[in-house]
């Protein structure tokens, strides 16, 4: 039986685009949005945060980013502008969005990081992760690093704990990580050549995924094979 909060969330996640909204009508879980255009996707995520605002509830934005490339990536002016446009007071809006930043894989793989998220308000509607792969592609691999399964599963657990909807932004040019693909209920890939179009790769209403999602190819560290 679905919980009350899940039923409540079985509305569409508003994105500002009717076409996209119709694909994001789910009861919960993780939605992965893929695009190589970081600024564009980040703006879309900012819009999602605002459009899905609800009084007395919070959204969480996890910022996992390369410090040197884009320290302050959230377009505040844009966020507030959309909010004002649909009648949300600026202070209310910025109070409702919680931000947690990480600039290194060491952080997202540490228990202390995930413990800090344990103090968040229970009424968390939306958890946005910007982004999943950036730290993996910018940080050098150390022997003690954990594979992507770890943060993906911790994110999934966080979303389930709060009965929220999770949105993961993935800017990587490579094929989607297999485990990320597995935990996502919906995967949408945006293409920007000759106009913008969105491809629904995975969806609960699709019998099979649109394209083959690899199940092998996860990088395996030596110590995981011992």
């Amino acid at each position: 039986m679905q919980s009350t909060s899940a039923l409540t969330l079985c509305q569409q996640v508003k994105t500002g685009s009717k076409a996209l909204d119709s694909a994001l009508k789910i009861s919960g879980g993780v939605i992965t949005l893929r695009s190589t255009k970081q600024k564009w996707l980040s703006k879309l995520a900012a819009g999602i945060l605002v459009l899905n605002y609800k009084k007395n509830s919070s959204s969480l934005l996890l910022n996992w980013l390369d410090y040197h490339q884009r320290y302050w990536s959230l377009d505040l002016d844009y966020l507030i502008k959309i909010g004002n446009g649909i009648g949300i007071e600026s202070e209310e809006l910025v109070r409702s969005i919680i931000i947690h930043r990480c600039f290194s894989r060491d952080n997202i793989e540490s228990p202390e990081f995930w413990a800090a998220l344990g103090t968040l308000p229970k009424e968390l509607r939306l958890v946005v992760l910007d982004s999943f792969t950036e730290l993996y592609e910018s940080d050098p691999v150390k022997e003690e690093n954990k594979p992507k399964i770890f943060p993906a599963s911790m994110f999934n657990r966080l979303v389930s704990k709060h009965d929220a909807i999770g949105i993961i932004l993935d800017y990587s040019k490579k094929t989607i990580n297999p485990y990320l693909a597995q935990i996502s209920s919906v995967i949408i890939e945006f293409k920007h050549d000759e106009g913008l179009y969105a491809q629904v790769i995975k969806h609960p209403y699709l019998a099979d995924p649109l394209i083959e999602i690899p199940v092998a190819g996860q990088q395996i560290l030596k110590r995981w094979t011992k």
Partner: protein
Amino acid sequence: MKTDGWLINSFEKQSRLYLRFKTTQGNKLDLLVNSLHYFYLVPKKNMVEELAYKISLHPNVVKTEIELKKTRILSDSLEPVLKISINCPENSKELETQLRNIEGVLELAETKLPYYFKFIADNQLSFFKKYEIAYNNEEYVNAKEIGEQEPDNLVLASLIQVKGLLALKTQESNVEYVTKNNLNYALRNIDILFASWFNENQIRKKLIPAGLIHCDLREDVRADMYFEINEKDNVETLDGQIILGKRRLTRLIELSRITGVKPDIITKITPGSLNTFIHAIAAKQKGFLVPDKKKLVEAPKTLLELMAVDKGGTILYPSPGTYENVAKCDFASMYPSIICKYNISPDTLNCSCCSENKFMIKGIDWHGCRKIEGIIPTGLEPVLLRRLKLKHLKKQAINAQEKQELNDRQGALKTILVTCFGYLGFSNFAFSNVECKEAVVLIGRFVLEQSIDIANEMGLTPIYGIVDSLFVKNGNKEQYEEFVKKVSEKTGISLELNCIFKKIAFPQSSDGSWVANKYYGITNEGEIESRGISLRHSDSCKWLKEFDKRIIPIILSEDNEKELLIYLNSILNEFSRQIRENDVCLKDLAITKRIRGKISEYTSNAPHLVAYRQLPTQDNHSKFIYTTEGPKPIQLTNLNNIDKKKYQTLLQHELEALCKGITKQNS
């Protein structure tokens, strides 16, 4: 046995650590250290003894010892940890991997700190300090510090490649030609070698004797943003290398002494990384383990809170125009001073030990600790105080050479200070903490705002301010001196009167907006000081700088707009004619830019890179001219093929940049 001398280097031979001393008699003394390489292991609760026994059975482990250490930055409590001493540092990586997989092991610590560094830190030694050295059959016993005096008997040499042979020269000797086979022998009496010939680590390790300090001048200068090369400094000749090398030696000595990093490593690491070492020493002194990985995470904040704390420094934009009798006041090392004065450190920010009388940080409900000095201020304060002392000595020095040496020394320490703030937020720095960085900026904003208030109270008018600098007018010299004194006392951060401008101009940007960091003025001493224009840019050509030097006094002295425009046009025409008629020296048109990385790694087609690819140089500087065939190195250009239109355009842009918002025509 005992003797006096200086610790100048350390090296490893067959997995054992040696310290190299230079005695006062001029002899080299290599002493074996009877100490093992070690690192720490943090166990789960109640598992330390079990792990101590298990791990001691490992063939690479010589012994395990239980010690009490502070394992968490945010806690003062001592916890039992294992100190693991090993016999083969080369196999330590494999051992570390195995240990991490053992049940009950939380983490390892201090595996990334070099062997020699830990020994130096644990025994409170410093490179280039004078000691009374006790030893027994070439084995080190101890060293007692007997003075700050630096060694004066180091043998310096330089090496360059000449037509397939290697030419070696010391300060006193003639040139000696050697081959790779006898290089090791030829270097036996040398303490410091300046050479850029060794392209790979493998060659360097094979050919340079252990213990010799090797300084690759090209690499060393490339990394140093504050070092100004003189005409005599030359990496391509033997004598030039020694002259430059002597200057770099003062830097090596200053940095090696204060950071505990051995001198030949100083030339190979970034200035920012030196922060890691000074704070590692501070952490060890305070009983903290130096973690391998950064564990501190930023606390989740609402966007409202983040907007309140995550700000940059205060900027008071100047209204475009010219002003008279303006004092330029600078805070000395503002952010490092704030870190030390307000005790900003991850282990002390928002401490639980101070309930009353804490340093409150304006703008946020955070405080600094008044009881315990944090790791960051402990590491930084000696650097700050030493630099202030050197600057003071430089002001008092009369001799030009002494002034330059003191300037090189204080410049060396400046590199640590200017990077320490950024390092506070750097993800790979074990002690970094974004909240500390935010706290420093908030305090800095408050300090500048307080200074503006004090200026207003004194009847002075602030016209421009940027982070740690404030320009005020409407006073005389005594009032300005009184102002900086009042601000220094009130804020606790030293504000200095840098200079007084007879007249200063703040132009607009090309799109008409007000802009910070762009001005030019003439001081009471008749000197031109500027920011943001070609005169100040190190990569601008000499010809444009000459243009600035001609134009600026006229703009600042001529009040009649009509007359001013006539003068400006006449100078513009004069410089245009020089280009049109080739009446200019080619080297004065050259633009020089440093190439910081390997040229093969650059993908851009910026003019300096396009030119450098055509003719790479030993000193990693691209000196190029705009020609009708695109940018070319100066060596491949002559006056007949310069791109005259390009230089005319640069001239026009320069004039506009200087006059925009100053003259009515260009407002």
